[in-house]
Each structure stands twice: as C-alpha cells, then as structure tokens.
C-alpha cells in the first residue's frame, strides 16, 4: 500500500473518480495545466484531458455558478476554491442556489457538486489565507460539510462526497497537507509517512459521511475535534497524561451525535476544540448537542478551546492558534472539577 500525504490522497481520490465516472470534472483557479497551487490536481489534466480538468477565471461566484449548471446537466463537478478565505464571492451561489435547489424545485433538480477548499492557519498566511469558515456552512440547511484530518480519511471522504447527490463543502486543513501537525510549531514537522493513516489504498474506497472516528480511547474526558485540531488534541492528551477520549468528527454535517453522546455519557466531561473563531462557531452547536443529550451525565461544565474572536493575525499566529498548551489547560479544568 503506498504511503500518501494529504495532497497525494486527495489527488488519488480525484484520479479514481475521474477514471470511474466520466461525468466527474474538476476545475478552479490554477487547477488545470499547473495542477493547483497545492498540487492537489497535479497530472490530472494530462491524464483526463482539458475538458475534464481545467483552469478557470478568478471568479469564485462564476466557478460555483457554473458548477451548479454542470451538476444540473448531469455532471459531477468538483470545484476547487483556492483558499477557503476566497469562498465568500460564491456565497450566494452556495447558500441560495446549490443548497436550496432541490427544495425549491420540489425535488426536480439537485446540485450534486463538491467544493474542495484549503482552510485553517498555522502557515503564516495572515487573515486572508488562514480562515476556518466551516461554521458558516454548517448553519446552511441543504449543504453537507466535511473536514478530514488524515490522508486515509481524506481520500475515502472525498470519494463519498463526489458520489453524494447533495452539495458538499470539503474543507482541507492545509497545515496538515504534509504531516500531522500537532501544534508544536517550534519542532520539526513529522511527515505523513511515519503515520499509520498514510497507508492509503490506491484504489476506490469510501468513508460514509456522518461517521465520526474515535482516534484515542479514554475514560476521563471526551475531546471533540476535527481537522488539524485532532492532532493537537492527541498531543495534549499524551503530554498531560490525562486519559482523554478523542473523537475526530470528520463530517460536521451530517454529524455523528451517537458517537459523541456515547462517549460523553461514559466520561462525564467534554472539551470541544476548533481553530475557527469562538462566538457562534460550530463548537457552540457541539456544546448545545452535548448538553441536550448528556446533561445528566455531565460532571463539569463543557469547555471550548478555539481561535480568538479576531481576524487571524500574521505576527501573533501562535498566540492565536489553539495549541496543545491551551487544550491541556481545558483538559485540566474539566477533569479537576
């Protein structure tokens, strides 16, 4: 089985689907000849031709508008938005159109498209190359929202997203494209090849949307995370010696409430971690779900560890980034109550 990093796994998913289904097309800014600024589509134009893998104008609203039309025709478009920070010009096409087309047409039309977009910080990207806007999209009914944390999941989830008959926003945490970054920015990055999740089958497989993964078993506290934060939380658990159970949600909507409730009922404590800003973020939804399902099992108030409610700063990146030290503080707070 080949060892793949996140980019290679995403590339492999696209490769597999372009080969399996002639209706799959992929496009975006710099996606065609060049293969994408993060190389996620490298080699695909050469393999599948210019009419299935191509460059687009710098027009996110046009990219998604055209993708919707293609999906209505019967294609399976996979559109790349170069950075999640650039997705806002396409907001109306996603929220008012892709998300609601099936509903408003009484089921006559649908928009089975995937939007792949790199998100998250820790790369010195400043406020326009670091955002995590997943909570904006989980709030929109009619969209599915996915964020993988490792190469194996990235490939299986992306294939499932392409096969899904509803629109899926597929967030790729760019900080972990090359290795499972755990928040220790002052240490050398361990490459994916040293991680078991880099064992990625070259062929087709899928991971159904809506199934969380327990990445660390534990009894003292439940940690709910996704994307880069999964690795930060694992590091925090190891370094603190706290017997934390870490849940990688993988799919935010649909969400695996059962996995969360089962774990929190067992541990009685819960820490929620995301890189996105705090107020009105997806962590608030998770917190509400936990208290709705597990209120009588809770031994301590739920803690949230998130990015601060500021734009993502450049120079103060590591003061902003919710690293292991902050997660450990929260783990201690809930377990010492």
């Amino acid at each position: 089985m080949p060892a793949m990093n996140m980019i290679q796994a995403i590339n492999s998913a696209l490769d597999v689907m372009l080969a399996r289904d002639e209706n799959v097309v992929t496009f975006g800014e710099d996606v065609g000849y060049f293969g994408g600024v993060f190389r996620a589509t490298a080699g695909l134009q050469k393999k599948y031709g210019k009419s299935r893998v191509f460059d687009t104008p710098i027009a996110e609203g046009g990219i998604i508008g055209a993708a919707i039309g293609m999906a209505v025709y019967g294609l399976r478009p996979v559109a790349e938005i170069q950075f999640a920070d650039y997705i806002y010009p396409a907001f109306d096409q996603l929220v008012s159109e892709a998300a609601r087309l099936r509903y408003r047409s009484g089921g006559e039309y649908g928009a089975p498209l995937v939007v792949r977009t790199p998100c998250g910080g820790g790369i010195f990207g400043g406020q326009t190359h670091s955002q995590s806007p997943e909570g904006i999209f989980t709030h929109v009914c009619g969209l599915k929202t996915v964020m993988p944390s490792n190469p194996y999941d990235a490939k299986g989830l992306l294939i499932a997203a392409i096969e899904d008959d509803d629109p899926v926003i597929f967030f790729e945490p760019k900080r972990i494209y090359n290795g499972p970054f755990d928040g220790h920015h002052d240490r050398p990055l361990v490459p994916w090849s040293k991680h078991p999740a880099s064992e990625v089958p070259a062929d087709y497989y899928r991971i159904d949307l809506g199934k969380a993964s327990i990445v660390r078993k534990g009894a003292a506290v439940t940690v709910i995370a996704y994307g880069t934060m999964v690795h930060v939380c694992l590091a925090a658990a190891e370094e603190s010696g706290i017997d934390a159970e870490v849940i990688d949600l993988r799919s935010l909507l649909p969400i695996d409430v059962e996995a969360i409730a089962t774990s929190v009922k067992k541990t009685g404590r819960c820490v929620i971690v995301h890189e996105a800003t705090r107020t009105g973020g997806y962590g608030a939804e998770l917190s509400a779900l936990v208290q709705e399902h597990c209120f009588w099992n809770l031994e301590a108030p739920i803690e949230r560890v998130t990015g601060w409610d500021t734009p993502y700063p450049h120079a103060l990146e590591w003061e902003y980034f919710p690293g292991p030290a902050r997660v450990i503080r929260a783990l201690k707070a809930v377990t010492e109550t």
Partner: protein
Amino acid sequence: MTTRKRRAEPPGAAEPSSDDEQLALHVPEPAARPGEAHDFSELHIAAAGTMARPAVDTPESALRDYPYGLIRVLDDAGKAVGQWDPGLDPDTLRRGLRSMALTRAFDDRMLNAQRQGKTSFYIKCTGEEAVAVAQAMALDPADMLFPSYRQQGLLIARDWPIVDMMCQIFSNPADRMKGRQLPVLYSAKQANFFSLSGNLGTQFPQAVGWAMASAIKHDTRIAASWIGEGTTAEADFHYAMTFAAVYRAPVLLNVVNNQWAISSFQGIAGGERATFAQRALGYGMPGLRVDGNDFLAVYAATQWAAERARTNHGPTLIELFTYRAAAHSTSDDPAAYRPKDEAANWPLGDPIARLKQHLIAIDAWSEEQHAALAAEVEREVRAALKEAEAIGVLGGAKPHLHTMFEDVFKELPVHLQQQLDQVQSELKGDGN
C-alpha cells in the same frame, strides 16, 4: 471651460474657491416623472429592415456595429422587411400569436386571482410577450432554459399545461413545488425549464455551466438564460459573460431591457451612456440589440444566435429592447414613479398588436379571427382556473407537514426526522 486643480490638502482641508471646482455626483434621472408628459425624444429608433443579417459564423470583430443598432423586421405598416425576416410560414406566426394571447389572458386572470385573495403575489409580463414566446419557438424544445420571473411565455410556448402553473401560483396540493416557492417561481424539468430562484441573476452563470457541460459531453443541446437590464449590474452577469466567452459556451445570454427595474429606470442600471448589448464588446462576444416587441425580429435574432452556438461559434448577448407595460408585481404601483401614459405611448408598440397587424397585412388573419382567438384563450384560461381552484387556492388545503422537511437533502437525515417528529407531536399537543 475650467481646468480642474489638484489639491495638495487632505479632503475637507480647504474651502473651494469657486463653485465650479466642487465635485458633483451625477444621479441619472428618467426623461419624465409622474405628472409630466411622457418623453421619448432621447430614443432614436432606426427604421425596420436597415440592418444586414451576417452569416452565423461571422467573427465577432466584424459584428461590432450590432450593439449600437436595433434589429427590426416589422415596419409601421406591419410588413416584414430586410434581411432579418425569418420567413416564417403563417401557421408558425399564428401559433406565436396564440401563445402570446394566451400568455396575456393568463396574466390578466391571475392578477384578478391575486386581487381576490386567491394567492399572495403575481407578476405580469404585459408588453413583453414576444420575448419569451418567440425565443422559445426559435429554440429547440430540447434546449435548456434558465429564465427569470417574467418569462412565463416560455412555458406557454412549450405547451406546458397552464393549470400546472396555476397550482404553483396557488401553492395548492397539486403544486409540484410543494407550496415552497413564491408564486410564479416555477420549475418544469420535463419542459427543460430550470427552477426559478428569486435571487436575481444567479441563473446566468448556471446556464453557462450547463452549456459548458453540454459541450464537454459533445451534446447538441444549447442553453439560454434571461435577466432584466437591472440585473446586469450584478456580479453574476460578469461571471456569466466571462465564462461564456472564455470557454466559448453554447449559450444565449438574454438581457430583457424593459426600461424599469421596479422604480429604477434603465439609466440607474448603467444604460444612460451605453446600451446593454454593448457590454458584450468587452468580452469579445457578439451583442445583438433587438426590437423586443417585434416577434419576427426576436425570432430571427434568437435563431441566428442559436445556430451560431450550435455550430461551436460560441455565445451571444442579446438585448431585447422592450417596455414593462404593467407594474413590476402586484406589490408595486408604477404611478408613483413614471408617467401614467408612458406604456401606452411606447414607440415600439405592443407585440401582439404588431404581429396581428402583420398577419392581417399578409392576408393570413382577420379581425374576426382575432376576436375569436381572444375568446378562445379566455375560455381556456377560465377552464384551467376552475380546475386549479377546485384543487385549492392559497390558504386552503395545505401540503402535508412532512413535505416541509423533504428535499432539503435527497435522503431525510436523522436531525430532520427528529424535527419532523417534534413538530408533529407539538401540533398534536396543541389539539391541531
């Protein structure tokens, strides 16, 4: 003439030395407002038949006069003149006349239905019937239409049952949109008619995407989309034009310039200094400007652009120059912003009257036949209305509660099933 001085001081730092150095914002104003006589003196309309019809494979560089002109076929006497005459047989012309008459009768009846409280809202297309009807007829029935909300004539020209449209307008149990959409925001997949959004202009880049897909799949079908002149100011217009031009998409991008976007005249949308067809020039796309009240001209221009698209010569922007004779919608009263007699005096006349005049001029129609047609379409509309009303009007039989949760996703997810259970049990608890 005064020379404008550049100021070194920051804004507001110094008093201007004289009035003519002060900047002044230009806010366009229409030629006439309520209480004033209509004024079309700025409208320069060329005679019918003066523009040449180029071959459909003519390069764009040789078509740059068209955005400045106006393609017209019917002259004041109702004769078809010039190279753009599509040479339609009388049967086709009579079919067009009938669809336009049916569209108008449908509109009148549905306006009444709204006034009687049978629905919440309605939008007429009075004066613009030739746009939708002639364009639908000039396209192939398999071509995909991405309309705006004033092209009900597309469905009628494609012989879509008007009772189905009425059920949508009444949000009754036979409404295929399950009572979810504002009246007139139809969807008719079987007629290759796309679901209407309600957000303006979003369908323009979608139509281009559909056309790109058709080209990717080496299909023969093309797409057409419609927006109003006001919507050309939206980014979606620019997206659509850029993508259509870049990928040479087989698509017709239609701008229906009916002079008014609710209360804003076309100058507010940017039509004061340039025509909307001229927008095409910047994209290297042909732009045709057409007399939108001239059934033959609309048909011919659409046919030209469709053939051009179908033979891989790419997209065309068509400005259909017309006039919104009715209010924007049932929620609007144009007496508040334009002269009362403006519609009646529109220099390009009424599309139904002009086609009727033409048919009579070629001895293919008579006043008696026209009166009979009017009565016939009126009967048809009344019969359909009776049928639709028997199924229900707005506020009567509602769709089932579970339909509120369906179609958000293809499969009903757990959280929506739970919300459905909750609302059902809450309503039961309230004794409903």
